[in-house]
């Protein structure tokens, strides 16, 4: 039966799995695959597995438990090998790579930060700063049918929004990157102009979190900071 893989750890990781359940309904039973250097947590692959909420929660739950006890390389959700033997072969084949990655993340946790800004505040700022946008806005308020002017206004504003979001993303990222061992920035989304993960040492996690609090406070009410962590180091595995 196909083997679902949750995580890879060093051989000396305690792999406490009591009370945890794997993906699937009914939940699959967790077991371990070991080599002299490495260990993997696996289960059978339930038939028809998809990314349902309970399965994502189970996957995440296993990783959070393992993370509490030592360095762990989290697998991407849904990774399946042919059988336990081939998982063991993969651990053996890639042992140098996995051992090196485990050493890199040892003692570190991932924090994911998403920052957004209230759109209204940004639009006000643009109208304040751009004479052209302000005049177009005044004109189209009086002449709502002026589609070409509406488009011209929208184009200016869209360009300004993007430029301002990029600048903000750079400014805020520059505050936190120096506090982390490594940084992984995802593309900004429509809502979040900054979407970044930080690999932070366990004993520096409090300072990192504090720095995010301080920056959020400094930026004020228009901004929303969403800090998630500690997380298994998905972005650094």
């Amino acid at each position, binding site marked *: 039966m196909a083997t679902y*893989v949750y995580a890879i750890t060093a051989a000396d990781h305690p792999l406490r799995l009591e009370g945890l359940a794997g993906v699937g309904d009914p939940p699959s039973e967790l077991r371990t695959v070991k080599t002299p250097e490495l260990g993997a947590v696996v289960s059978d692959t339930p038939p028809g597995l998809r*990314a349902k909420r309970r399965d994502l929660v189970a996957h995440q739950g296993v990783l959070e438990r393992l993370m509490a006890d030592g360095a762990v390389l989290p697998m991407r959700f849904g990774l399946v090998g042919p059988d336990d033997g081939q998982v063991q072969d993969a651990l053996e084949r890639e042992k140098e790579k996995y051992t090196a990655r485990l050493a890199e993340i040892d003692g570190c946790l991932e924090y994911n930060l998403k920052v957004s800004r209230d759109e209204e505040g940004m639009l006000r700022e643009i109208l304040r700063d751009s004479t052209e946008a302000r005049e177009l806005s005044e004109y189209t308020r009086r002449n709502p049918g002026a589609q070409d002017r509406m488009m011209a206004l929208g184009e200016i504003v869209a360009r300004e929004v993007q430029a301002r979001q990029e600048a903000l993303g750079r400014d805020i990222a520059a505050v936190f990157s120096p506090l982390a061992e490594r940084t992984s920035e995802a593309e900004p989304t*429509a809502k979040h102009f900054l979407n970044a993960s930080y690999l932070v040492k366990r004993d520096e996690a409090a300072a990192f979190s504090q720095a995010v609090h301080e920056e959020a406070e400094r930026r004020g009410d228009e901004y*929303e900071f969403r800090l998630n962590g500690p997380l298994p180091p998905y972005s650094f595995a």
Partner: protein
Amino acid sequence: MSLVQQSNASGSGGGSGNLYDVLELILDRGLVIDAFVRVSLVGIEILKIDVRVVVASVDTYLRFAEACNRLDLESGRKAPAQLTDIVGDTVESGAKGKSKGALTGAVEAFTESFQSGRDSSEEKEKETTKRPARKSTASSSSRRSSRQGEE
């Protein structure tokens, strides 16, 4: 200040309160083993919905222009629509309630898509104020990585 901090490492078996926030990490990052496969992830395109910056299009321009012209320039800045000010460990319940606008719609869109009806009764769905899924085109989620300390 508006900060939502969610800390999940209490061993609670994986709180799902912040699942949406970390969904992209669980589904899109993490280690893969060469030659192993990934299960078919029906509905995974939901992930990409938000991965886009401002798109240059007629719709976008009109939306921005209309949003500008709706601003009441005299009254100055209003309070943000959803202010979440949850600090520290007051995690899930508080965050869910207060940042409802921000979170709930997204979570609903995600659960609906991922479950496509099957077993939906057993999943603990909260309010069912259905929102239309946001329409958008998918775009790639390539990312920039930088390794500090290796330079």
